[in-house]
């Protein structure tokens, strides 16, 4: 057994221990507020069997996908624009940064009033959530492309578009990669927020909501696990996508950033 597997095993001890303690405790003192893991598993299975879970999943994923699509495309577009035009950057970047500081959940009452109780308000929130990480990172990525590269492009007689496509874009790729990963994660967070803070919406967070209203902790647990699992999956997917083919070499991440935008 090499060192890596050993540390992996060591890492698993804590969670396994936690679950063991949980099971042990609840087998003696089961209460409403502390149901056994089995109960939560049963709740999840029940949701799956009754096809409720699939419905919730579909609804949440639909909103997520829509919001992501809008947010990331707008964010990328805006980031590229601001990254290439000093003038636009001067006018809009400080404002966008300021705008970024406004807590997105504060928008919810306004969005509901203006966009109705339907999905529009949630999709807008998710779009806003996924907009900023990509914007900030794309902009930073384009900004750090060394002038000398671009000058070289001029020397070769490349057009503006070609310079963008063949020089700037590849150079900015590590940052764009970070941006997309952060966007996906934050977008997922905003999906949960939008569902929790608007009523009766048929999404995954309904599991949490019902659990909270009816004091059924096993549902709350189930909801947390499901949402966490999906969050993990999306994070993984986002990271993996960038490892495909030539992108892997291009986007090797020299630039570590936790800044979620």
């Amino acid at each position, binding site marked *: 057994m090499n060192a890596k597997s050993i*540390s*992996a095993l*060591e*890492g*698993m*001890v*804590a*969670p396994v221990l*936690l679950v063991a303690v949980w099971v042990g405790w609840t087998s003696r003192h089961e209460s409403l*507020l502390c149901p056994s893991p089995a109960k939560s598993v049963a709740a999840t299975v029940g949701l799956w069997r009754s096809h409720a879970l699939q419905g919730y999943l579909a609804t949440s994923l639909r909103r997520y996908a829509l919001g992501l699509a809008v947010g990331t495309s707008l964010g990328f577009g805006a980031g590229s624009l601001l990254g290439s035009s000093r003038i636009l950057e*001067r*006018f*809009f*970047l*400080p*404002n966008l*940064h*300021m705008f970024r*500081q*406004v*807590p*997105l*959940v*504060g*928008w*919810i*009452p*306004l969005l*509901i*009033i*203006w966009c109705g109780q339907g999905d529009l308000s949630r999709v807008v929130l998710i779009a806003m959530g996924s907009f900023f990480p990509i914007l900030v990172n794309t902009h*930073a990525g384009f900004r750090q492309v060394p002038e000398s590269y671009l000058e070289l492009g001029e020397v070769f007689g490349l057009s503006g578009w070609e310079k963008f496509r063949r020089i700037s874009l590849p150079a900015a790729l590590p940052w764009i990669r970070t941006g997309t990963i952060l966007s996906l994660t934050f977008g*997922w*967070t905003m*999906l*949960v*927020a939008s569902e*929790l*803070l608007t009523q009766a919406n048929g999404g995954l*967070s309904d599991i*949490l*909501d019902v*659990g*909270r209203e009816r*004091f059924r*902790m096993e549902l*709350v*647990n189930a*909801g*947390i696990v499901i*949402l*966490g*699992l999906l*969050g*993990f999956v999306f*994070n993984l997917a986002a990271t993996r996508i960038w490892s495909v083919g030539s992108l892997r070499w291009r986007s090797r991440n020299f630039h570590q950033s*936790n*800044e*979620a935008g």
Partner: protein
Amino acid sequence: MKRFAWIILAPLSVQLLVLLAWFLLCRYEVFPPTLLVPPALVWRTIVDLWNSGDLQTHMGWSLRRVALGYGIGVSAGVAVGAALGSSRRLETWFGPTLDLFKQVPVFAWAPMMIVLLGIEEASKVAFIAVACFYPVLLNTSQGVKGVQAKLLEVGEVFGLSPRHSFLRIVVPSALPAVLAGMRQSIALAWMAVVSAELMGADSGIGFFMTYSRQLFQMDGVIAGFLLVGAVGIATNALFGGLQNWLLPWIREVA
């Protein structure tokens, strides 16, 4: 001077344009006036709130909760982060577990807190603390880990005790990262308190927004929103200033 004008006036002009657009949209009633309230009316509402003391009361409650939750979350985050960052062993054993919990979208913790701790202060402070915990944890552990081995060796050469080594080498090296984490956390904390108040509260700025909405007082909702935004912007600026003051050798890039 011209540069100064660029830096200040350019963004300012955009803000003024937005204000103008808002004013015009209301003037020509492009949207129902009950839903898009004119800026003048919103301003008057804010002034009224200030005069009646309601603004201070609600804001006070929200800030109080943030202060408490933030304090707890950040302290825990720094402590755990420092521990994990300095001890390989601790990281191997506990890192994966923390990673596991990190996957859960932060807002998902709110219902659990409410079920366990009720709808009063405790659940809100707990939720805020949880929200603040991770950014600080991650940044601190990275910051501590990143303390260059060379510097620590120099410390050894000079015969510094572990405690001294910690205080005089690790802390200043890791400080930028810790502050970055704290800055992210304050934004998250403010978001957490507003959402907790939107979910169920008897006071606070989020409660005020809900209350205004129920009473169909859109000026109140918009006023609340502006106040929430203002605090978010102000705290971020405050932290930026703090970073620049404490760490003048690291200039903020935007």
